[in-house]
């Protein structure tokens, strides 16, 4: 008997050991994208510190920056957007999130409202195989992190019809065990909970500048979809869920370069909001972003576009939501820390960026003061895209006033001022963080730019760089210390350094 008990105990211990090691392997091998995105959500939800949940697709991921929202308004938020998330996936994302946190407000983007197939793997109603594969692939980003429970089973039953696919989501080791070839140090760190994580509260910023948007044919004013779609059904469910739980809900249509159907979808979302009596912020209309410079690509915003969109939502929340500004609250130091980190990284990104378009766009966010100088005869003056970008940053049309230059713009966020001069015009004693500055064009390759108290230092002339026709002087917006002085050649419109 004693021997039998001994054997039974050994067997149990053996099985426990095997399962413990396999569990560790499961964690190490799991693709970390989902955990990476939501790790902070769980931590912050534990502290009940999330005021606003942003829901939607990649349009939300790239359009809403919680670090900007906190920095400017003191509101705490988490960007729950999922790449390629249809509204049914967004609905279940909300349901999963509500298990951990009940926010004051939910802000849901209504993009892809027109999609009218229930299951993400519905090959009959959606013949685009690559779209299905992408949807399924991207659904892992949204779903992998949530633990296996009744709600997750319900979600998968609602989102996916193929049994094998469902199983992959419920027991993701089936999918990820073959990641052994790609595991990194971070994968092992995740076993003890020290994996790297998204430090932008779920958001992701992009920095490219799409300069050739597609201009679609506008539908008739107020045109909406004639028939109910699955997307509409799930937007309604999201609104109802929030209303049932007494969570404020704001529906948005984040700005991007829309097609005709997107404009109709935006109108339809408005109609749904009217029916439910919930607020709606349609940012496709109006001038929240500049479509020629705030896009990273036709579908997604760059960091400058995200900054503008986040501020637009922040303004709305400030006016309507009754949220508390947490910026002076010690308990919210982590938000302060990560918000500052974003701006630190933005500044690093600006200095390391090679593309003049991207750099100027990022500079327009206002983390540095800068001086842009274009020499007489520069190709800038025949480059409509660059001129538009400069106009967008300066907020004036001075760049258009001269056919051949020269042109100078001083953008000083410290004093919230932009100074410009073109052609023969000069700037006298303008107040900047660098001091009181003077600009005087002299001849084609020579101009003066100096501080009133230090006339000997001409910032915009260097014999070694006579050939370069564009100069960018970047300075600390508070101290005026010059941080970088870059020279570009506009030849061929490439703006090479």
């Amino acid at each position: 008997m004693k021997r039998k008990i001994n054997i039974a105990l050994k067997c149990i211990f053996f099985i426990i050991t095997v399962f413990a090691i396999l569990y560790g392997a499961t964690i190490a091998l799991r693709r970390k994208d989902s955990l990476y995105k939501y790790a902070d959500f769980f931590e912050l939800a534990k502290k009940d510190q999330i005021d606003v949940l942003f829901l939607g697709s990649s349009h939300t991921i790239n359009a809403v920056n919680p670090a900007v929202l906190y920095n400017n308004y003191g509101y705490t938020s988490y960007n729950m957007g999922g790449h390629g998330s249809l509204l049914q996936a967004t609905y279940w994302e909300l349901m999963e999130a509500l298990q951990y946190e009940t926010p004051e407000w939910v802000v849901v983007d209504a993009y892809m409202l027109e999609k009218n197939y229930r299951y993400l793997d519905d090959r009959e109603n959606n013949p685009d195989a690559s779209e299905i594969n992408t949807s399924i692939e991207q659904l892992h980003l949204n779903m992998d992190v949530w633990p296996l429970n009744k709600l997750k089973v319900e979600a998968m039953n609602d989102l996916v019809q193929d049994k094998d696919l469902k199983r992959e989501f419920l027991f993701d080791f089936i999918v990820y065990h073959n990641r052994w070839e790609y595991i990194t140090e971070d994968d092992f760190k995740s076993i003890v909970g020290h994996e790297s994580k998204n430090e932008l509260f779920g958001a992701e910023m992009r920095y490219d500048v799409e300069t050739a948007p597609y201009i679609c044919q506008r539908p008739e004013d107020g045109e909406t979809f004639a028939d109910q779609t699955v997307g509409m059904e799930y937007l309604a469910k999201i609104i109802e869920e929030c209303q049932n739980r007494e969570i404020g809900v704001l529906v948005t249509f984040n700005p991007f370069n829309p097609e005709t159907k997107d404009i109709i979808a935006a109108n339809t979302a408005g109609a749904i909001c009217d029916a439910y009596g919930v607020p709606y912020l349609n940012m496709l209309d109006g001038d929240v972003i500049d479509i020629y410079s705030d896009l990273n690509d036709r579908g997604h915003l760059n960091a400058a576009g995200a900054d503008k969109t986040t501020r637009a939502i922040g303004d709305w929340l400030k006016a309507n939501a009754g949220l508390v500004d947490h910026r002076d609250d010690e308990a919210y130091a982590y938000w302060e820390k990560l918000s500052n980190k974003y701006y630190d990284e933005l500044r690093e990104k600006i200095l390391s960026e090679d593309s003049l378009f991207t750099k100027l766009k990022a500079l327009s966010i206002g983390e540095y003061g800068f001086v842009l100088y274009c020499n007489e005869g520069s190709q800038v003056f025949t480059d409509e895209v660059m001129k538009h970008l400069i106009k967008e940053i300066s907020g004036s049309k001075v760049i258009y006033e001269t056919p051949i230059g020269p042109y100078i713009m001083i953008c000083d966020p410290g004093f919230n001022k932009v100074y410009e001069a073109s052609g023969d015009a000069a700037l006298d004693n303008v107040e900047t963080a660098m001091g009181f500055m003077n600009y005087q064009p002299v001849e084609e390759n020579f101009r003066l730019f100096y501080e009133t108290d230090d006339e000997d230092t001409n910032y915009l002339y260097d014999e070694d760089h006579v050939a370069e026709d564009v100069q960018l002087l970047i300075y600390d917006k508070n101290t005026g210390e010059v941080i970088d002085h870059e020279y570009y050649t506009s030849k061929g419109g490439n703006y090479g350094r």
Partner: protein
Amino acid sequence: MSFISFAFMVFLPIAVLVNFIVPKKYRYIWLLITSLAFYATAGIGAAIILVISMASVYAAGLLLDKYRDRAKEILTAALVFNIGILFVFKYLNFFMRILGLVSFGALPDIHFNLFLPLGLSFYILKSAGYLIDVYRGDMKAERNPAMLALFVSFFPQIVAGPIERAGNMIKQFKEPVPVDFDRFRNGLLQMLWGYFLKLVVAERLAIFVNTVFDTETELGINGSPALVAILFYTFQIYIDFAGYSHISIGVARILGIDVMKNFESPYLAMSIAEFWRRWHISLSSWLRDYLYIPLGGNRKGTIRKYINIMIVFAVSGLWHGANFTFVVWGLLHGLYQVIGKALTPARDKIIELFNIGRYSFSHRVVKTAVTFSLVSYAWVFFRADSLGDAVRIIRSSFFFTPWKLVDKSLYGYGLSRGNFLLAVAGIVLVVIVDLYNYRGVVIRENILKQGMWLRWIIMITGIVVTVVLGIWGPGYNVADFIYKQF
């Protein structure tokens, strides 16, 4: 239900646990229930055919015992009936195709929409062996229908063997040995080795092999890729089938039943004849005992011996599949042996002339390498979809492109660098284990002699490696065991 399915992972513990609890006397009933349940998952049609075959074999056995004077007729009728089942479900369409070919189209190539019942070729051979044993008087007919049904349908064996003898199995069903902890551990370790072979090595090799064999243009596979694919397939089929056999034998052992070995380091054989004494032993010994010897074996002169060899290997080829590729594969092996035997005097002379030590290491290595090469190239016919494809692959393998072995081109056939190296490491491991096995060392038994901690480390590592590195789940089209299709 496949051994590599989740359903089996649930089924097996239940089968083992209840088998452990059930009194020895009734254990065979439980094993029959589990075997029939296992087989029922193959479909109701397949199950009906199994039951009909078992009933006919049971009845024929009793009749053979009762009417000794008419035994030949009874045996013939029973064999015709059961082999007829095999013919209809496995060979009818092939036969119609041959008729169409030999009549030059005068007879239409009719195709019947027939399914191949799971394990049909295997259990028909087991049943035939039993009937012949009863006919010869080597054993008494089994009177307990459940016992005979269990022999035919025993679930660890029914899918792809080993093709056991009734004398060995029924005796064990009647007097099962106690399933103690040592037996359990031994069986479990053997199963684990089988799963490792199948999931980690064979399935990985299959990715490369399938990519090369399914490439329709020669250009992309000329030279090294084709050669490596032939080499990989040689190991894939062995490791796949050996993996299955280890699982099968391991499962049976856990259930208290000892099943014969199917492999004895076959690729270390120094002749084709020796290869067949080491490869798929349960089939080759079956063919020897129930076909080659009754045909006269080597007792009726040299020419007749050669004819008998060719017949046996043609049957062996045809048994594996209803396709000309299998027939050619079988005939090739027959031809290898006939030529080998015919050339024996000449080979002996050369050995004498050059004073080569017959038992020297170098001579043995050369013989092993030559045998391995002959077997490898014969496998191409076994794997290819058609004779034309086989010739194409073989021709491709003779192109001289050794640079492809080192310029990373081999990673372009479905296996990344890591997976390719892992596959090669798997082959090396199998060769090492076979070398030990060749010398009579059973590594599994040596592991079981070690202290608990070392045993545990080995077993846990084996489980984790198999689960993590195994080719299973989405992204991979995991095939069932190759021999299951026969």
